[in-house]
């Protein structure tokens, strides 16, 4: 991956520093609510956005959103600072800073929004900004492909979510989360299952639950600061946030418990194995993120105090250590030029601060006392024991935590304290702007562990209260909870984890072999897109053939079918042919027109066709003459004359009608032609069969002379009663003349093949 990192490039530039400053300021702004929220519960902000659609830009700052807001802005500021140094000298750094900042704001909006539609707006904004971030190395096809994959998958989930939200709005009568949650669970509502499924699709795609997980490791194409940010506090946690946010209104049914438990547990264990399988440390971390998401979903399945507390505590812990570790890996990559777990080792001497940060984060991840990670694990086991499907949950959690222990050693211990590796570059300590982030986060993980009461009071308990939809009793976070079953499970986890680490190389090989045989969802994605494009091309081949005849046939066929079907489905009455009063002359005219028509159809001689057309035209004119329309008849005759003259002039320069492609036999065309003709005749018969309302004509006849001073009623209609028609009509004549003139006179200078390319032609000669 080409991530330029010129150590001498100036990295303190306005774009970077402004975004860092604003984000830090936001962090302070939210931090000031830390003492407020535990006391007051929630702080709303409302702006009426689209009142007529019941969509308000309303925000709601309670324990849950406050915790997220702090993580987003706090980690955001550190990551942005880190990125300024990491991407120093990159020609598109300014864009990067802008995207990262926009992403931060979108995420902030998402976690603060109270109105579901507002929430959705921000939800999609995070999808879009993360698309730009993942595709940041846009010249790399893989990067583009992965960005698109992430976009399409999360957008697909987003659309399901939108449907779910709309359904909630329609069935519950409000889009405000605060009202929905206050009303309690909607599990009794008939639309509940539909809503739940739609919302879960949205949340699961965004939070990469198995089997929709594969986009997440691919999103690693993004530069490291993005990974750190996306995978720690934010984007992928949006789904978890949503589940937590809607817990009071959506939980409370067996479906909720089962689905979340199964998907969460499967994701957690699967991802843990995959994490061990990887050799690229960034990939390893990506899969541990997946594990964390699975775990969070798993515990959100529960509704007891311990389960929710476990979810919230683990959320906090994970955000801190995962961001830290990603940043550490970035430094390692930056300094050594590799992220390969098999190569890296013994870096502690060269980069002691980074190593210390990595160690602290790793210990938190492994869940060693006295880190907050340990407490999280204890609470998690306590929660698991309270949940439905107890044995399953405990076993899965145990497996996941044990594997996590091993991964922590692989990521945070081995590269720094393991045997010296053969590195592409001689490592040095990272620059302070990059080290600050991981160090701060690592220390926080330790501090919270030492003072669990602080974290519990200000962050976790308000969040738990928000998720539970009821005030939290608290007091669950303790570094030492006495000898109990969770402690025993913790000790067993350490033992199992250590064993796994000892044999992880062996395990990795086995996993690689299994993986080779398992279906590859990522490749399946490509096949899906290929199949879609193939389908599209097939459809285009069938519909958009490029052949006028086919288009024409389809158009007439649609007309015929539409009319015929209507006639069959709706009563239109039968046909009665009344030929009384039709004399010899009329039949003669009809025969003339018929003869002309047949001649045009059958002949392949240009002259004969012209004659046929002329005969038809004269026949029609005769009808007009006989039936009291002299103006129309004269016009018809003159126009017919002009048409024949123009046709004659043009036809003589053109090939014979059927030069080279005489189609003698076209039964389908003939059948369609007869059908359309017959239908038209039938409808006209039925229409003229009924009595006629002459009130417009009567008016014209009465007013033509008395009010418009003209005795030729037809002409008066043309130039007075309906002048606008006539005006439009002469406009058509003139535009037709202009168009034809431009066509005939304005073509390119033509030789047989001497065409210039059209767009070269279009350059204006200035």
């Amino acid at each position, binding site marked *: 991956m080409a991530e330029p990192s010129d150590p001498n490039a100036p990295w303190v530039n306005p774009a970077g520093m402004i975004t860092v400053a604003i984000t830090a300021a936001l962090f302070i702004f939210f931090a000031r609510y830390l003492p407020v929220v535990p006391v007051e519960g929630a702080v709303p902000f409302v702006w009426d956005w689209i009142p*007529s659609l019941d969509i308000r830009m309303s925000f709601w700052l309670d324990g849950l959103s406050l915790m997220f807001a702090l993580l987003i802005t706090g980690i955001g500021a550190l990551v942005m600072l880190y990125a300024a140094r990491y991407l120093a000298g990159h020609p598109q750094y300014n864009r990067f800073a802008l995207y990262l900042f926009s992403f931060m704001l979108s995420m902030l909006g998402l976690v603060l929004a109270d109105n579901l539609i507002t929430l*959705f707006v921000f939800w*999609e904004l995070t999808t*879009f900004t993360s698309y730009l971030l993942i595709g940041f190395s846009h*010249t790399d096809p893989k990067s*583009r492909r992965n960005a*698109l994959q992430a*976009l*399409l998958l999360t957008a697909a989930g987003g659309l399901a979510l*939108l*449907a779910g939200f*709309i359904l909630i709005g329609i069935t519950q009568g409000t889009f405000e989360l605060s009202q929905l949650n206050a009303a309690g669970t909607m599990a009794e509502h008939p639309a509940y299952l539909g809503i739940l499924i739609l919302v879960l699709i949205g949340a699961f795609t965004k939070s990469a639950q198995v089997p929709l997980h594969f986009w997440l490791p691919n999103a690693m194409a993004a530069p490291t600061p993005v990974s750190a940010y996306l995978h720690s506090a934010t984007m992928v946690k949006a789904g978890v946030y949503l589940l937590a946010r809607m817990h009071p209104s959506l939980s409370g049914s067996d479906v909720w418990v089962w689905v979340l438990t199964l998907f969460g547990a499967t994701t957690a264990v699967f991802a843990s194995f995959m994490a061990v399988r990887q050799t690229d440390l960034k990939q390893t971390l990506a899969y541990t993120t997946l594990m964390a998401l699975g775990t969070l979903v798993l515990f959100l399945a529960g509704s007891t105090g311990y389960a929710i507390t476990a979810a919230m505590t683990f959320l906090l812990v994970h955000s801190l250590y995962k961001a830290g570790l990603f940043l550490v890996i970035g430094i390692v990559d930056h300094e050594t030029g590799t992220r390969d777990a098999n190569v890296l080792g013994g870096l502690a001497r060269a980069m002691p601060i980074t190593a210390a940060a990595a160690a602290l984060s790793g210990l938190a991840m492994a869940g060693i006392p006295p880190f907050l990670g340990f407490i999280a694990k204890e609470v998690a086991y306590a929660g698991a024991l309270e949940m439905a499907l107890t044995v399953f949950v405990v076993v899965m959690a145990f497996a996941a935590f044990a594997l996590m222990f091993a991964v922590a050693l692989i990521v945070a211990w081995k590269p720094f304290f393991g045997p010296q590796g053969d590195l592409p570059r001689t490592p040095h300590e990272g620059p302070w702007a990059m080290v600050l982030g991981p160090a701060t986060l690592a220390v926080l993980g330790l501090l919270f562990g030492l003072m669990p009461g602080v974290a519990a009071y200000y962050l976790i308990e308000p969040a738990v209260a928000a998720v539970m939809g009821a005030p939290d009793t608290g007091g669950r976070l303790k570094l030492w909870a006495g000898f109990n079953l969770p402690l025993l499970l913790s000790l067993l986890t350490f033992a199992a984890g250590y064993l796994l680490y000892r044999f992880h190389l062996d395990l990795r090989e086995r996993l690689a072999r299994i993986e080779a045989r398992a279906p590859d969802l990522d490749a399946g994605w490509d096949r899906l897109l290929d199949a879609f*494009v193939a389908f*599209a091309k097939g*459809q*285009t081949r069938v519909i*958009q053939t490029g052949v*006028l005849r086919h*288009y024409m046939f*389809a158009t007439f066929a*649609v007309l015929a079918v*539409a009319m015929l079907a*209507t*006639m069959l*489905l709706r009563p*239109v*009455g039968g046909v009665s042919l009344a030929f009384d009063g039709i004399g010899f002359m009329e039949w003669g005219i009809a025969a003339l027109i018929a003869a002309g028509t047949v001649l045009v159809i059958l002949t392949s001689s240009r002259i004969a066709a012209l004659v046929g057309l002329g005969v038809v035209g004269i026949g029609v004119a005769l009808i007009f003459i006989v039936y009291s329309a002299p103006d129309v008849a004269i016009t018809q005759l003159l126009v017919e004359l002009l048409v024949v003259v123009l046709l004659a002039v043009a036809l003589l320069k053109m090939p014979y009608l059927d030069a080279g492609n005489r189609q003698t036999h076209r039964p389908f065309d003939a059948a369609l032609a007869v059908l359309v003709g017959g239908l038209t005749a039938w*409808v006209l018969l039925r*229409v003229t069969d*009924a*009595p*006629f*309302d*002459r*009130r*417009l*004509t009567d*008016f014209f006849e009465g*007013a033509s002379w*008395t009010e418009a001073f003209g005795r030729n009623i037809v002409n008066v209609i043309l130039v*007075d009663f*309906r002048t*606008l028609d006539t005006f439009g*009509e002469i*406009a*058509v004549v003139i*535009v*037709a003349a*202009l*168009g034809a003139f*431009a*066509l005939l*006179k304005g073509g390119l200078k033509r030789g047989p093949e001497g065409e210039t390319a*059209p*767009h070269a*032609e*279009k350059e*204006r*000669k*200035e």
Partner: protein
Amino acid sequence: MISWLLVMPIAIPFATAVIAWLARMGPAGRWISLFGSVLSLVASLALLMAVLENGVVAAQMSNWDAPFGITLVADYLGVVMVVITAITGLATAIYALGEIPERMEKLGYHALFQTLIAGVTGAFLTGDLFNLYVWFEVMLISSFGLLVLGGSREQLDAGIKYVALNLVSTLVFLSGIGLLYGMTGTLNMADLRGAVAAVENQGLVTVVAMMFLVGFGVKAAVFPLFFWLPASYHTPSFAVSAVFAGLLTKVGVYAMMRMFTLVFTGDIGFTHELLIWVSLLTMFTGVVGAAAQMDFRKILSFHIISQIGYMTLGLALYTPLALMGGVFYLVHHIIVKANLFLVSGMANKLAGSTDLNRIGGLYKSSPFLAVLFVVPAFSLAGFPPLSGFWAKYLIVKASIELEMWFVAFVSLLVGLLTIYSMTKIWGMAFWKPHPDGIEPTPDRVPASVRLPMMIPIVGLAVMTVVIGFFPEPFVQFARVSAEQLLDPGAYVTAVLGEGAAAPAEPAAATDAEPVTEPASETGGQP
């Protein structure tokens, strides 16, 4: 005064066309055209004010009362279409300053362009069915001329298909008018509402309604009548294709909305139900068709079809919310789609082609253009908070309210597939490096060409963003439009006068009493 407010948006482009044509040999022609477009916009905004004040306004041309003369009428839907036409017209008139070569100007580009605008505007304002046909023809013949202007071989081929299919639809429409007149004896659309309801043989009315549906369906490019559109829209100059993309199909949709809310409402269970399926297939086949294309403008062309489906769906669902969504969609899509075609023209100028395989590098070298592509493209795909999101939101919500799950599903799915196509353009034209190693920086085009081309792109993008961020007034407007469509009482009253809003009595000879005032100011009875 109202009368002239209604006339001006039609008369100004005609007058501009005449003057611009007479001045076509010099550079004055393009400035006249531009000035005329500005005037048109001013006039249509004045009309908008009048409509906002009065609800529906109508005026009798030649001073003969409806239904005898021709009525011009503007309700909320009509006037917003006029305004948006003027905006699109102005945008492309500015764009043309940069794009259209002198050779095409001398052949009468500006006159054809202005008559096109006049025809479109006339179609939106007329309250008379036959007059609607006339405006359709004005629009059509102008579009024929513009489509083949420049005369490349592709344009001729495209022109053949475009002309052939549109002429057929026109004649179907014309025959439909004749038959409807034969059944009711009237042509005034407000008058037709009552007269059609009074026809005894309602089955026959539905058959004729089918002819209108097919005729308008070709114009609107719905499934399976859209062939002419992907066959032609990628061939003319970019300014022309932008106007076409923005306006032409919308006239078909508008006519459909008008006729199938005002006149053909007798058998909704049949006509509108049918239209739901047509709409869904239109949405789906359009978006799938786009996936097979690798040309900037061909992709956009298929997306026009796809989006048309949403608009007709709004009509087909026939609830206030759905129609509101349809109207919102109509307006939003004109802005967005015209803009995308304008962007494609700029991309062509910078990178040398519209074939996505042959261009690239625009993101790196022309970031400003990249932003200006993203805004309409993601608006089209329905990303919040851009205008397209609200349009889609309304349609989806309407279908969910009706518990039409499949309709909602298709609407959402098509949105997703739209993202696919838009990101394809983004990935290939913007992110991917140029295959020839060219850096398509903006200064590859002289400022005298670049500026006029960029100004409308920026303007339309700003509108997209504004509608997206502050949709409330637009939503309100769409709501009133939908209400007026669903309950045309105000429309009918405005056209026919008080007391006519109730369904007209069945045909009776006594109706022929002239209710018009004679043109007494100047003449009087002899």
